[in-house]
């Protein structure tokens, strides 16, 4: 994003927040549009089960609207959303682990138990890192990623299009995700250093 765009967006955001604080619900719709994708992505990096992503995003916005007068204009709205989401996610994970985890399949349960709680601020940096790392994926592999995540093709459909076996597609995607994870961790470690 260019500096001019970012500045324009911030100004838009501040005027939208003012309108929402004056009771304009439609302005809140536009405000949501500005952040919904990144908020969901940050939650996705922390949610132990996929369906919590949209649930938490939904609850975050409802809470934000009902407490919009508590928001201090001039500060970062996205940071405020993240802190709401973080609190909701923690509470939801506790509730979920009490009520639902016993209904999960074994593998889901193990993943649920293994996902560590980390501040969403950390995940926001991870997300920035992930976007940068994605830019470095070679075109042929990027094509795989597009087919899986943008076009929602099944493994068989991808295999047919790239003229490889389904096993190759699965293995390659698995390696690719591992490389992305390592790349993100390297970036964060470098930034920290």
């Amino acid at each position: 994003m260019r500096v001019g765009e970012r500045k324009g967006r911030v100004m838009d955001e501040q005027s939208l927040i003012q309108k929402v604080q004056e009771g304009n619900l439609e302005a809140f719709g536009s405000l949501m549009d500005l952040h919904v994708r990144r908020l969901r992505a940050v939650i996705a990096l922390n949610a132990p089960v996929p369906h919590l992503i949209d649930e938490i995003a939904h609850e975050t916005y409802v809470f934000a609207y009902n407490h919009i007068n508590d928001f201090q204009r001039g500060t970062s709205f996205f940071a405020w959303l993240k802190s709401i989401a973080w609190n909701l996610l923690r509470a939801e994970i506790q509730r979920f682990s009490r009520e639902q985890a016993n209904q999960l399949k074994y593998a889901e349960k193990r993943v649920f138990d293994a996902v560590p709680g980390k501040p969403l601020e950390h995940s926001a940096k991870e997300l920035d890192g992930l976007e940068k790392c994605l830019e470095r994926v070679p075109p042929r592999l990027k094509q795989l990623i597009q087919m899986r995540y943008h076009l929602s093709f099944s493994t068989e459909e991808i295999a047919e299009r790239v003229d490889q076996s389904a096993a190759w597609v699965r293995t390659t995607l698995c390696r690719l995700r591992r490389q992305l994870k390592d790349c993100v961790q390297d970036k964060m470690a470098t930034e920290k250093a």
Partner: protein
Amino acid sequence: MTDKELIDGFLSGELDEAGMAQLEAELRANPDLVRELADQQQIEQALKVLLGDDAADQQVTVSVLSVLRADPLDSFKKDLLAEVKQEAEQRRREEAAVKVPQLPPPPAPAPVEAKPVLELLPPPRAARRRVLPWIAAGVAAAAALVVLGVTLFSGVEKAPTVDSHAFLLSVGPKARVRRGEKLLPARTDMVLEAGDVLTIDDPSETKIGFADDPTRLKLKGPAVLHFIQGGTEKRVELLKGEGEMVVPPQTQPFRALTPHAELRLDQGEFRLVSAADFTRAEMRRGVATFTGKRDGRSVKVEPDHYALAGKDVETLAKAMGGASPSADGPGVVAILRRVQGDVFLYSQSPADRTPAKSGQAILENQSILTEGSRSSLVVDYPDHTRLEIGGDTVVATLTDKKDRTLKVVTLSQGVLNADVSKQPPGKSMILRTPQAEVGVLGTRFLLAADKEATRLQVEEGAVRFTRTEDKKSIEVRSGFYAVAAPGKPLDPAPLPGGVRYLDIDLNSGVTSGEGQWTVEGRTVKQSRVARQAEGGLSTLLCKADAEEKDSMVLEVVAEVEQTTPDTAIDRGTWGFGLEAMFRNRSVVLRSAQGPEGTSVFEFPGITAIPFEHGREGTYRLKLSITRRADSGGRILPEAVLRGKIWQGDREPDGWMIENAFELDGPMTQVGLQTVRCACTFSSFKVKVLKEESR
């Protein structure tokens, strides 16, 4: 499949049952894989969000806005209704004052012109947050409410024109509206016009409100609803699916039609199920009249009652959830446990079903139905045979119709896991599906059936599998599966990545010490602590049919449900262990609690304390046996034996014991040992993780 393929298959939701079983086995055996899977899932989720189309973003935005809009409308209506009531009360008081006979007639009032209804609206309010977008709908609703209020409180016979529309309060992602020839995507706030047909293709929920009052319908997809009309004579037709409906007081009965029945009520709350063969209405509040279309019979349905009508069902009304028979009552064949989700029992037709509860007894003529992939239950027979029944499953029978002691399970569709206790000679348990029959004397297996095929997957022991079509019969052993389907070969095949279990017969075990072991199905109870025996040891060893292999890795799993240390003596350490017996050697790995809260492993040279000893939980003993060969390839009596024991799912790295022994022959027995305590164990099994011969 490799670990990477398994992980990707899991994340993409493309793993079949065998793949899932393999992944679970890998996760149990390899704790690092859990971390990897969690990492991969997070990246997967983030990529899906970042690179996916904006449908999910929009869904979040729409759902938030619909929630934020719904609240002020409700409170707006509430305020308005209160004001209308006040107006009506005022008017009634004025009219009563006019009718007082003793008073002289008042001067003739000036003619009052009929005022437009909207004039009864409250005076303009201060601008309120969140009301603006709802001005249009609010005005319409206000007008309708005012009319309703005037009708209710002033006794006016006929209501003026009211808004006869309905509108969508929230919509599922795959909801559509057919209006005449047009097919429109359903949206929140969309108006439903008379004649519209709403179709929901997925299992999501769609809510409908009416413009003139707070009547609410909540449809659970997949469903098809024909909106016939709103207003004072509301009529809807539920062509398919189920819905919950809340109806406030009506001037004309609310009518809900289905292909098999019609329900009329003045007010109340009910759930309506419209299936291909039947209609079922469950009343929660209010009284309704329910008329079956086939026999034209009408029945009254009161709260906590349900009514049925259908193709093969006589129209009737019954109380919901009748008294459950006692566990040892006449006709009881099993007890239901761990009931989760939508689980029902029925006698003649799935239409005539009642919700099942944990602890409830099931009678010989009753069938089981589970709806939804996450619904499940456990059926316990008196002999400890256990069926774990999965989602979207129909089990039509549990016993033979003539001989209740003979277990005949009819799996019409779905999936079940059977853990069958040893059956009496000549009384094999039989499981029937549309394509096959399974005969079993005692073992563990999974059976899944649909319209086209039946799949049998044997975990432990051996099972006779017969295809109904041509009576071809095969034996399927532990670690193998077979599929019965018309025109397909009926052969056992090894489970890809599957796990084999050794045949263990707990009932034919030998004991030492004075522990008094008793076996009930898969549960082993030790009712008395061995005091006289050396060191307070008590052992139960059972025959284990392990073949002699050059190398073998076994995992013994036992669920320790209860432990009671002996408090009658001044004891030392107490605990329990798992024991493997070879012809000439016994290997015991024991976990024990020290006398003053210290923990010890009772084998030499081991000081690690990876868990709290002597307590309830899942314990695992892993044994690796690697035999050596001489230069001519002949197996030597000496073998390297490694072992470790742990509690829970997190396997410790490395081995706790590692020694070269002379082991004569294969492992012959495996069992449980206690030290100065009494324990109850269940789910005792021996998994073969690896076996190789040159």
